[in-house]
């Protein structure tokens, strides 16, 4: 807290004002736009709703693709909305409960079992076999991730993989080798200590650390666990790890935090996006991240940020290719035909592919992916090369879709680790509480 106070007093209020102004303009524009297209459409026009989560870049690309779809399909108006991941998930859950999932919705891998099992999503088998939604150019294995009890309920929008955003300039300065496939968790911990030893200060004068704390992040735990031969779930009703596994992981993270090698507790709990994460706020030199959001780090922090592989256990990688997000159709849609057309357009239309680019990591349509890959540069090129490197390195098969209880278990994971870093529980107590909670959630 050593930054001059006037700077702190000012920036949030200005930002708030700008956000409010932008929201106002945005609303005005949206209503004008939808007003235009509604009046321009032919009589008996159809209105579809389409929602997704993601950053501004993804939003503007998606908007453009949707406008192209509207132009190609006179009479169909698409009303769009989007938000950040957390808010989006809550809204969708509420909508799903009321039977009102949007006509077309971007979905998380974790939601597929719950929403399809509960009849909130439309079955897509017919649209796929009729060719309204084409899947011929996609990997069969990837398409299968959108199934529940052997029926297709959603289709992947992108193929993602976990990776590691790091400030290469700082790594050089601290004399650390750039992350490469096969580097280990011990090397990672050592790198963090060496960054912290540089004794740099963040913009507001606090100690600069090596990395974000991975402890509250279930994805990081999964990578760590898989590297040791474990997995998150043994079945739809059973955990795949033990109290000892989780205690070991949380002890490892918490010790690094206590040493000042990874971000402080208060910065960890306030991170909800790239901008608010310790790395985004200039408090840490690296962060675990999925490939899709990685370009956001470069946009925010500059070209010295690069994308590397996550650490392994003695060379055994825990990462895997998984659908970064999926696209589904609400079971209650009055326009299943038009919704299917929109889904197909977003996944398979070459021009839509050009517009969307890699904003949802590698497109599932191989032809589109190869076509765009030629034009890629900067961080997106890096992601593409990274996924090719990892394909060659060899990764274990992806797990089956997570069980229904996974959503609350994921938030319990974050919460219980927060209890550790605030000294409200030891790693073992927190791990035991998580396992108790998880077993309650997984109860058939």
């Amino acid at each position, binding site marked *: 807290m050593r930054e001059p106070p006037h700077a702190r007093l000012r920036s949030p209020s200005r930002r708030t004002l700008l956000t409010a102004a932008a929201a106002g303009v945005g609303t005005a524009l949206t209503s004008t736009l939808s007003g235009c297209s509604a009046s321009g459409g032919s009589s008996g026009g159809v209105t579809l709703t389409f929602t997704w989560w993601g950053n501004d870049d993804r939003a503007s690309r998606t908007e453009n693709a949707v406008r192209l779809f509207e132009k190609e399909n006179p009479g169909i108006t698409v009303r769009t909305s989007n938000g950040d991941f957390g808010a989006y998930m809550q809204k969708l859950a509420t909508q799903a409960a009321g039977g009102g999932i949007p006509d077309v919705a971007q979905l998380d891998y974790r939601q597929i079992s719950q929403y399809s099992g509960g009849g*909130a999503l439309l079955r897509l088998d017919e649209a796929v076999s009729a060719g309204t939604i084409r899947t011929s150019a996609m990997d069969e294995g990837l398409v299968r991730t959108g199934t529940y009890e052997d029926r297709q309920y959603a289709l992947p929008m992108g193929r993602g993989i976990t990776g590691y955003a790091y400030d290469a300039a700082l790594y050089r300065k601290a004399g650390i080798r750039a992350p490469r496939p096969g580097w280990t968790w011990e090397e990672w911990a050592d790198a963090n200590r060496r960054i912290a030893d540089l004794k740099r200060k963040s913009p507001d004068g606090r100690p600069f650390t090596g990395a974000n704390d991975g402890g509250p992040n279930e994805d990081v735990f999964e990578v760590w666990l898989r590297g040791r031969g474990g997995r998150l779930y043994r079945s739809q009703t059973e955990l795949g790890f033990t109290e000892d596994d989780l205690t070991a992981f949380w002890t490892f993270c918490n010790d690094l935090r206590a040493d000042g090698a990874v971000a402080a507790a208060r910065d960890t709990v306030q991170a909800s996006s790239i901008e608010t994460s310790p790395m985004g706020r200039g408090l840490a030199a690296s962060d675990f991240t999925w490939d899709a959001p990685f370009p956001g780090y470069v946009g925010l922090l500059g070209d010295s940020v690069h994308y590397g592989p996550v650490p392994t256990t003695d060379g055994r990688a825990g990462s895997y290719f998984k659908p970064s997000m999926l696209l589904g159709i609400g079971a209650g849609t009055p326009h299943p035909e038009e919704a299917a057309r929109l889904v197909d357009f977003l996944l398979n239309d070459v021009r839509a592919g050009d517009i969307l680019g890699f904003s949802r990591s590698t497109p599932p349509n191989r032809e589109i992916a190869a076509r765009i890959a030629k034009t890629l540069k900067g961080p997106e090129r890096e992601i593409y090369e990274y996924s090719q490197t990892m394909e060659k390195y060899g990764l274990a098969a992806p797990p089956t879709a997570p069980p*229904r209880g996974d959503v609350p278990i994921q938030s319990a994971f974050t919460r219980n680790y927060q209890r550790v870093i605030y000294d409200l529980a030891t790693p073992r107590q927190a791990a035991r509480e998580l396992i108790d*909670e998880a077993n309650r959630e997984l109860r058939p």
Partner: protein
Amino acid sequence: MSTVSTRAPAPAEDPTQTRRPARKRRGVREKQWPAYVFLSPWLIGAGVLTLVPMAASLYLSFTDYNLFDAPRWIGLRNYSEMLFDDPRYWRSVGTTLLYVVVAVPLKLALALGVAMLLKSLGRGRAFYRSAFYAPSLLGASMTIALVWKALFNDGGSVAGALSWFGIDTGGWVGNPDLAVYAVVLLTVWQFGAPMVIFLAGLQQIPSDLYEAAALDGAGRWRQFLSVTLPMLSPVVFFNLVLEIINSFQVFTPAFAISGGNGGPADSTMFYTLYLYERGFTASHMGYAAAMAWLLLIAIGVITLILFRTSRTWVFYADEEGR
């Protein structure tokens, strides 16, 4: 989220009924139907929007219901799990009680203090009254809660201002020891409604009582204790009951400040927020319904206790034959 709206007006009775002789009852009944016609929007609303959902929620509280599949009857398991097998439930009870115990007295004290200042104010009273009431109008909104979050965030104005005085609190929102107090302050700041009620009460106190007390040599503090507080006690009681009931149901500020997850480390996981999380994030609607019923019972019991104890300290002027 008004999970516990319990008040229902007394059934419509015809006051003329008792006065009329029995042989005229038929005519009276003929005249009753227009009343029911005019009441029907309310009756239908109360039935469809209040009674049916309440009955449904009571039923669901004995089931395992995940919002998608049909509810499965499990008897009292939700209740027993809540009471004996869920440490987070009791943490949410503790957080809510702490909040009620801290926020309600603070808010009422501030409301009374400002009401007394406003009463003695001559010109400009209307302006100040509106100015102090404004936060109550704005305060329930999500927007204000988000602004509040920005103020109390790491790098927000509050942490900045405190660091001027050499107090390094960091962001309150990210500190499990302080986050709940950010919510408390947001509530306390919205003291306008009880303030207006206090002001009305203060204006009812006859000024001759103060004159008599002054003649007896009572100072301002003595006057406050011996005249103002006893004469105001019905109003204090009213505000206390209302605020306690409201505080048990606090939701919006905690939801906004914690981003909906009651964090950090469950420190702002109030009862209703936990209820919401169980229902809408974890999809355990039956469990959430059971929580709502226990909250209703708890608020009922606490209100009953307040009414019982009020006999000893609430003074109604007409009781003493004034």
